[in-house]
């Protein structure tokens, strides 16, 4: 029972989820509930000449049609919550419903509310919007070109932000023995969690209280922002996110839709439900990535990297989403050196407005974009100097005795042993034998490729002081309350907001071990702003490192309180009582002990407490971490390319991840597998494509290729353990390692397979045609 940390405990939430008993937002059924459907722009850029809702309003069962004009002065703008300093951020108003101008396909123009979903959907089609189409721009480089159509009049050149970190003088490159330059395109991705977004709002006209059930990764942040948009006091708003079916970052953002639904409930005095359908998700929910990067690396022929210079253009879409300005700057630009000791590095980023769906965090958020470029550059550099890419990595790793290591951007990596993870991976795949096999197969006309990615990520977001310094408009601490009831049963209230990460299990494991209480006696409560004191939510691989640490601190407070009570009851000095395996024991007197749960009962009864000890058994912690955490590892992909078709087959995948002290290896494996699958998805299949007119061309699962189980060999995982020195659990986080590591590993493998044809680089996704064209020297797709 007690040694629960580190055990592969099965996820307790799965039982209800697999039998369909989860409580997702669309499961919320309220008496008198009505339904909302959004009318969305089919144009990327157009002037709204008029909206005629008369036919829709005349349809039986239609209650209301809201337009942007109706809401002027009623609902506030949807704000961004990240304002990077010295970035000249051009914040432009994002009205919940477009007024006068639509700026992307999917921009909401009106909301129809009706008695049922069917009527609402029919009525939405009956709303006639008179559009005057205007020139649009979707591509990030086209948007910064001279004369491009402007997305916002007050953002000249479509530049939303311009941000720089570090400085590398030109002389460094002029003097270098070797300079490698490459332009990379990080294609745009569509998050596609299993559950699309949804909201249900209920208004209590007696108290003025609004309850909003919604798909949220951070209910307290949503409450904070929604209260602002709705113009109501925060304590009149309750946000509930019970079960949430994945988010991958897309459910961090605050969108217009949830505010609109809440407003409709308030106006109509009826509960209102809105559920995004899958087609809608493709344009109405934030996308991820979408950079063009120009990268220069200076090094010596012996494999030493001397400098790195990055210039990137990040497509932010039509409006600034909640965390959007921070993703391609802070979360990307400060860690482009990866796990390498590069003496000089700089990043310059242009955030660019385009007539496309807003772009925000997507699993990894900035760090995959950084890791991809440095891991690709390592391979290009290795190729340029004729060195094995593994040796180049080894030569430039931050050595294990250099931690804490401060990188050229002032970020301090907590702990690491990059060499050990690499070594483990090399042994697992038997690198030397694999290279021999590759050579032998090439002689037979078969093309194997081996690709590495030795990554480090900046996770466990993060110290609140740093949040402030980098312009994040919130704190990044986390709150936990541990409440021990008189019976000894425990409820844990966490501000982390799991949406698939399994924290009902892992957090109970932590508490069970820390308090010595049976796992079954612990319930983890999350996702409700009325039940949870405060929280900053789940993203950036922070729940365990920050939320879990808050829990550990709260448990320690309870243990200490119990110790005073136990000592008093056992008539021993506090320092003579030890707490082990859930019992307070008088040192050296085996028959004098009390269990934690017995002590909890005494604390509640308060018949005989030591002086100065208050009754009850509850503790809270607002844990503010002192640094980020820096998980790392080595991933290896082995692919085979069919030169006749360009098809890439993933033959083998080995992942060695170090996420500090493991809490639950089963859940870690799940996170690693899922992340790898998503990361490989970016490398090989996924990619949102816009036409030049700003129409999204990949609008369904018929043409947007999500990874499928049959595309994968068994994923082989291993771990090394290098605890984080600065949190009480020693944990680092593992939610994003897969998407950060897998993408460059697979691309490096494919490029390695294409060596016989001297292919230097291909942009993602590495579709069969793209690979086939490279092999047959056919140039880009027409």
């Amino acid at each position, binding site marked *: 029972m007690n040694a629960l940390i580190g055990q592969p405990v099965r996820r307790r939430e799965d039982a209800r989820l697999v039998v369909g008993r989860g409580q997702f937002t669309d499961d919320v059924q309220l008496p008198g509930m009505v339904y909302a459907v959004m009318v969305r722009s089919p144009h990327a850029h157009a002037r709204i000449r008029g909206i005629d809702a008369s036919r829709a309003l005349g349809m039986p069962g239609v209650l209301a049609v809201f337009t942007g004009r109706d809401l002027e002065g009623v609902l506030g703008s949807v704000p961004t919550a990240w304002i990077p300093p010295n970035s000249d951020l051009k914040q432009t108003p994002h009205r919940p419903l477009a007024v006068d101008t639509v700026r992307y396909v999917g921009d909401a123009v009106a909301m129809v509310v009706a008695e049922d*979903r*069917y009527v609402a*959907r*029919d009525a939405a*089609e009956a709303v006639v919007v008179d559009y005057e189409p205007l020139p649009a721009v979707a591509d990030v480089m086209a948007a910064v070109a001279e004369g491009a159509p402007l997305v916002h009049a007050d953002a000249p050149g479509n530049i939303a932000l311009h941000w720089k970190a570090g400085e590398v003088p030109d002389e460094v490159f002029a003097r270098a023995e070797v300079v490698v330059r490459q332009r990379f395109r990080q294609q745009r991705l569509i998050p596609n969690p299993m559950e699309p977004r949804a909201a249900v709002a209920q208004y209590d006209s007696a108290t003025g209280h609004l309850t909003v059930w919604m798909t949220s990764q951070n209910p307290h942040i949503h409450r904070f922002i929604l209260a602002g948009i709705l113009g109501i006091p925060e304590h009149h708003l309750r946000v509930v996110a019970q079960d949430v079916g994945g988010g991958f970052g897309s459910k961090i953002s605050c969108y217009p839709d949830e505010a609109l639904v809440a407003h409709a409930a308030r106006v109509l005095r009826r509960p209102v439900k809105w559920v995004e*359908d*899958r*087609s809608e998700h493709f344009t109405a929910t934030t996308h991820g990535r979408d950079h063009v990067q120009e990268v220069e690396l200076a090094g010596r022929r012996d494999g030493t990297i001397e400098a790195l210079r990055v210039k990137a253009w990040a497509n932010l879409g039509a409006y600034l989403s909640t965390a959007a300005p921070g993703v391609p700057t802070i979360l990307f630009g400060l860690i482009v050196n990866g796990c390498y000791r590069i003496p000089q590095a700089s990043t310059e980023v242009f955030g660019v407005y385009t007539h496309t769906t807003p772009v925000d965090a997507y699993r990894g958020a900035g760090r995959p974009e950084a890791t991809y470029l440095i891991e690709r550059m390592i391979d290009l550099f290795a190729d340029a100097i004729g060195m094995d890419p593994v040796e180049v990595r080894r030569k430039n790793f931050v050595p294990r005795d250099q931690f804490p290591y401060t990188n050229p951007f002032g970020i301090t990596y907590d702990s690491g042993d990059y060499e050990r993870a690499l070594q483990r991976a090399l042994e697992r795949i038997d690198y030397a034998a694999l290279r021999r096999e590759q050579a032998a197969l090439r002689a037979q006309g078969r093309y194997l490729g081996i690709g590495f990615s030795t990554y480090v990520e900046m996770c466990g977001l993060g110290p609140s002081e740093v949040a402030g310094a980098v312009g994040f408009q919130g704190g990044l601490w986390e709150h936990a309350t541990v409440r021990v009831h008189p019976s000894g049963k425990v409820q844990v209230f966490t501000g982390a907001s799991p949406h698939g990460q399994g924290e009902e299990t892992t957090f109970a494991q932590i508490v069970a071990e820390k308090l010595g209480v049976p796992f079954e006696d612990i319930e983890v409560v999350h996702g409700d702003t009325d039940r949870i004191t405060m929280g900053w939510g789940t993203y950036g691989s922070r729940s365990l490192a920050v939320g879990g640490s808050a829990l550990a601190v709260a448990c320690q407070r309870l243990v200490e309180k119990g110790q005073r009570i136990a000592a008093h009851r056992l008539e021993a000095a506090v320092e003579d009582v030890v707490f082990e395996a859930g019992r307070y024991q008088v040192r050296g007197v085996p028959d004098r002990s009390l269990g934690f749960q017995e002590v909890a009962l005494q604390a509640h009864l308060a018949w005989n407490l030591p002086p100065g000890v208050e009754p009850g058994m509850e503790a809270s912690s607002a844990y503010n971490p002192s640094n980020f955490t820096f998980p790392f590892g080595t991933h290896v992909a082995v692919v085979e390319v069919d030169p*006749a*078709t360009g*098809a890439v087959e993933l033959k083998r995948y080995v992942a060695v991840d170090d996420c500090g002290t493991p809490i639950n290896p089963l859940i870690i494996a799940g996170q690693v597998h899922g992340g790898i699958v998503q990361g490989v998805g970016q490398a*090989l*299949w996924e990619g949102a*494509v816009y036409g030049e007119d700003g129409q999204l*061309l*990949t609008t*369904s*699962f*018929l*043409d*947007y*290729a*999500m990874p*499928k189980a049959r*595309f994968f060999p068994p994923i082989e995982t291993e771990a090394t353990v290098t605890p984080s020195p600065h949190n009480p659990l020693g944990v680092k986080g593992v939610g994003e390692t897969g998407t950060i590591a897998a993408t460059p590993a697979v691309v490096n493998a494919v490029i390695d397979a294409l060596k016989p044809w001297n292919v230097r680089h291909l942009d993602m996704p590495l*579709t*069969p*045609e793209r690979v*086939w*064209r490279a092999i047959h020297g*056919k140039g880009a*797709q*027409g």
Partner: protein
Amino acid sequence: MIPERFRYHRARSLDEALDLVAQAPGQARILAGGHSLIPLMKLRLAQPQWVIDVEEVAELRGIREEGEVLHIGAMTRYRELMTDPLVARDAPLLALAARRVGDLQVRNRGTVGGALCHADPAADLPAAALASDAELELRSRRGQRRVALGDFLQGPLTTDLKPDEVLVAIHVPRRPGWGVAYQKFPHPASGYAVVGVAAAIAAESGRVARVCLGVTGVGPRAYRAAASEERLVGTGLDPEVLRAASAVVTDGIAVNHDQFASAEYRRHLAATYAERALAAAWAAIQA
């Protein structure tokens, strides 16, 4: 993802189904497995006023020998094609293609008749049914007619099915001993064929006596690659002949192009997959 309002009727017999489609010509759609029709309706790309479910129509079911042909009821599921012993013996190409259709759910629900009447230009079954010389049995209140599949398929989602007609069955010549293969390059998103080639070969004394090559995913409809077939008859299918015959597999076809595959690449894939399918079918005879 919510269809327009429609009326649903479950027909209990073929007569009833024929009455229903005759009453609402052009306004009714037959619901077979539903895995193509329902998504189209949810996207409002199909908006039939009447949906006539033929789930319970016994006359549309069953696989049986009728002399030289195999009669396969229109409501035969992919799963039945994959597991039926008569199909395995006499028309195994249909089973091979069925195995590559969609996912488990689609194979459990989707039907032969649904696939052919829907006429998706990238569906698997039409290629195999064309290479099997399938003939369609169509009924209406006006009577019965038979039409070759090659004439029935007209374009993307377009067939010769008249508004008052119901597809009852397909008839395929029984061809035990032929070498068959279906080779498919699936789209990573949809699973539909970017290119799918069904090959069936009959051999006599080591030479190709007859060959049927059905191609899907490449043009506006599935088609028989006559130019390729002509070059193969009478040959020993040696590599040069195979390559030359495969190279003309898209002759005369307006080749599709989309985000995933340009026309040039698709043409190349078609030739590659024709070569692979023919070689596999040939190898199946030798085995």
